[in-house]
């Protein structure tokens, strides 16, 4: 058994050198261009090149999702990858799992790599639970004998033994997720790349997944974990990498890096406060890559749909979420979190696991509203997370914005409650 000090002597299993990835943005269609445009540019490109001009891409804007990333990870290390949305975390994971190629630079990985960018990849509703275990297992890189030998464990972990020969479409959301995670957690690889797969499921199951991951980290595996939940990062990882705007901003022992990230979140927050004047607390920047579904804007209203400039303790409010969506999605779900800056989740309001609110997204775009009767939180700074998902399956988009709650003397004591003393501000009474 090796002691942590010996970590330095362990061989490096992931080495990343000057890794960069460029995306060309400003395209109107997912395919980028129509065949006619491509055809004509293919015809003219050689002549433009002869004339010493750049060719087809000159008019398009370039976006470096990752720029000159260098790091090394030794065997058995669990490394957290933190950063804001669009900092390049997912791109880095996609390059390391070979889904997409880098534009320049190089990475070397020693050992069997598996990536879990979502759970239940390839699950098919018409097939039974048993068939889906083999299907999903093969897709994430397990071979048949491996799946067969772990089959009973997977079924036991997912607690679906009675329904194992039932088509997946008859499964409840919870069963579906349990099965998906169960297969993923039995994947035996030397190196595991995980992208926030824990962000689904109810609290009890999340804890179970979390424990199984903690066990996995003790087995000598090398893990790279992308998460916005800084508690999870702190608990699981020894080391962290902080990406900012596609560059490696900080790297090292986990607590220091997480603190640097939190400071960064706090400092950039003040720039955004200006937008509050129109009640707009989030607006998608045009530099972001277009996605299948995106949240365009989040606007704050009071219960009569008047624009709300700021939120105070005990306010009732409406959050209007404007989205863009390529095609109609009937079984969508929406979720809202309010977390402390340390990443402790104070409230999570989900349309599908907490309530059974039916949300559907219209083709093209539209808006959905979130009503909150009473904001029982003390004044202070929080983080608001709003996400849209395919109910129970995967996130479509998720945005995080700083949330400032201003003080109000709700108890008429002369001392409005602040987050320095406590977070929760319930309506209560003592009788004696």
């Amino acid at each position, binding site marked *: 058994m090796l002691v942590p000090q010996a970590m330095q002597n362990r*061989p490096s299993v992931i080495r990343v050198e000057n890794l960069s990835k460029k995306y060309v943005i400003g395209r109107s269609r997912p395919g980028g261009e129509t*065949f006619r445009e491509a055809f004509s540019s293919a015809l003219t490109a050689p002549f433009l090149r002869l004339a010493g001009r750049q060719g087809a891409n000159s008019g398009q804007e370039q976006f470096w999702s990752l720029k000159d990333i260098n790091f090394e990870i030794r065997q058995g290390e669990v490394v957290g990858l933190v950063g804001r949305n669009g900092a390049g975390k997912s791109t880095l994971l996609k390059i390391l799992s070979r889904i997409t190629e880098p534009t320049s630079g190089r990475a070397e990985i020693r050992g069997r790599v598996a990536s879990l960018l979502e759970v239940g*990849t390839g699950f098919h509703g018409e*097939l039974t639970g048993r068939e889906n275990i083999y299907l999903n297992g093969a897709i994430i890189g397990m071979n048949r004998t491996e799946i067969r030998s772990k089959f009973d464990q997977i079924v036991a972990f997912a607690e679906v033994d009675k329904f194992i020969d039932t088509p997946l479409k008859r499964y409840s959301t919870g069963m579906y997720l349990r099965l998906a995670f169960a297969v993923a957690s039995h994947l035996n690889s030397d190196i595991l790349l995980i992208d926030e797969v824990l962000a689904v499921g109810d609290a009890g199951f999340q804890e179970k997944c979390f424990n199984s991951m903690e066990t996995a980290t003790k087995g000598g595996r090398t893990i790279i974990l992308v998460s916005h939940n800084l508690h999870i990062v702190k608990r699981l990882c020894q080391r962290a990498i902080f990406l900012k705007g596609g560059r490696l901003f900080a790297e090292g022992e986990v607590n220091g890096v997480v603190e640097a990230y939190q400071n960064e979140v706090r400092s950039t927050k003040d720039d955004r406060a200006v937008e509050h004047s129109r009640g707009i607390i989030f607006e998608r920047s045009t530099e972001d890559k277009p996605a299948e579904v995106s949240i365009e804007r989040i606007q704050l209203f009071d219960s009569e749909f008047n624009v709300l400039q700021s939120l105070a303790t005990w306010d009732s409010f409406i959050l209007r979420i404007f989205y863009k969506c390529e095609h109609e999605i009937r079984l969508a779900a929406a979720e809202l979190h309010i977390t402390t800056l340390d990443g402790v989740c104070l409230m999570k309001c989900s349309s599908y696991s907490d309530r059974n609110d039916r949300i559907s997204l219209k083709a093209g775009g539209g808006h959905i509203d979130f009503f909150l009767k009473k904001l029982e939180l003390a004044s202070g700074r929080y983080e608001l997370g709003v996400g849209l998902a395919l109910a129970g399956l995967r996130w479509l988009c998720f945005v995080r914005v700083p949330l400032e709650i201003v003080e109000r003397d709700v108890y008429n004591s002369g001392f409005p409650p602040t987050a320095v003393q406590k977070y929760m501000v319930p309506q209560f009474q003592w009788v004696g």
Partner: protein
Amino acid sequence: MLEVTRNVAPAPEKPENALQEQYFGHEHVTVIEPGRGWRWLDLRELWAYRELLVVLTMRDVKVRYKQTVLGAAWAILQPFMTMVVFTIFFGHLANMPSDGSPYPIFVYSALVPWTFFANAISSSSSSLVGSAHLVSKVYFPRLIIPLSAIGVGFVDFGVAASILLTMMLFYGVGWSLNLLMAPVLLLAIMFTALGVGTCLSALTVSYRDFRYVVPFMVQLWMFVTPVVYPASLVPSQWRWLFYLNPMSGLIEGFRSVFLAKPFDFLGLAVSACVAIGLLLVGVAYFERVERRFADII
């Protein structure tokens, strides 16, 4: 140093063979670099991933036969009804020559392989876009997707061919050693479909226009292929041009198989060469653009 590695590594599983070890083993080094230009298909990697191919094909087969009420009947009905319609219009009303065989079996023996080809092309060309969620979340040789889309067709082919064998009993024709050539011809049709299908599937990722091109193209292609008419209808000085369409030689070959007629080996050879050429071009183009799929799909 290496011994330290050995000690801390999670209990290594016994790899099944050297190839599995090379691609999934604990000592395998993956180098990730930007690729440029043309590169050749890594056949060994494809072979290492064969289980995934089998699993994906089985998924398509199961789903296809689970969702439908009539199940396997669809594989029969599609070419069978076409045969009935063609027999009425081309065989009886238009009096199309059929080289002396009864027209129903003449046209059905071509429709069975043609249906396989047409389905293989249309399903493989839409396969990549249909599997966007896999392509953007997991790595594997992307060629597996159009390959597995073609795989489903083999089951349908088997079902439809069983009707053909029944018809051969009914008409009392076609029982000969020529039947042994069927697998070879089927393989050649698969090569053609794969060559065209991979190209189209890759193009569909970049240009969705091709979704509208494919059905139209398949329809036109059927009429330049001797499905409803015999190749003997084509003037002999133009025969060589006719056989540049690989499906001409292969469909005529299938007729020789099921109607026990002599093979036109020259036509077959020309068509087979074009088929292999198409396969090479298709796969090469696919490999060249494969690495962009996840970014643009």
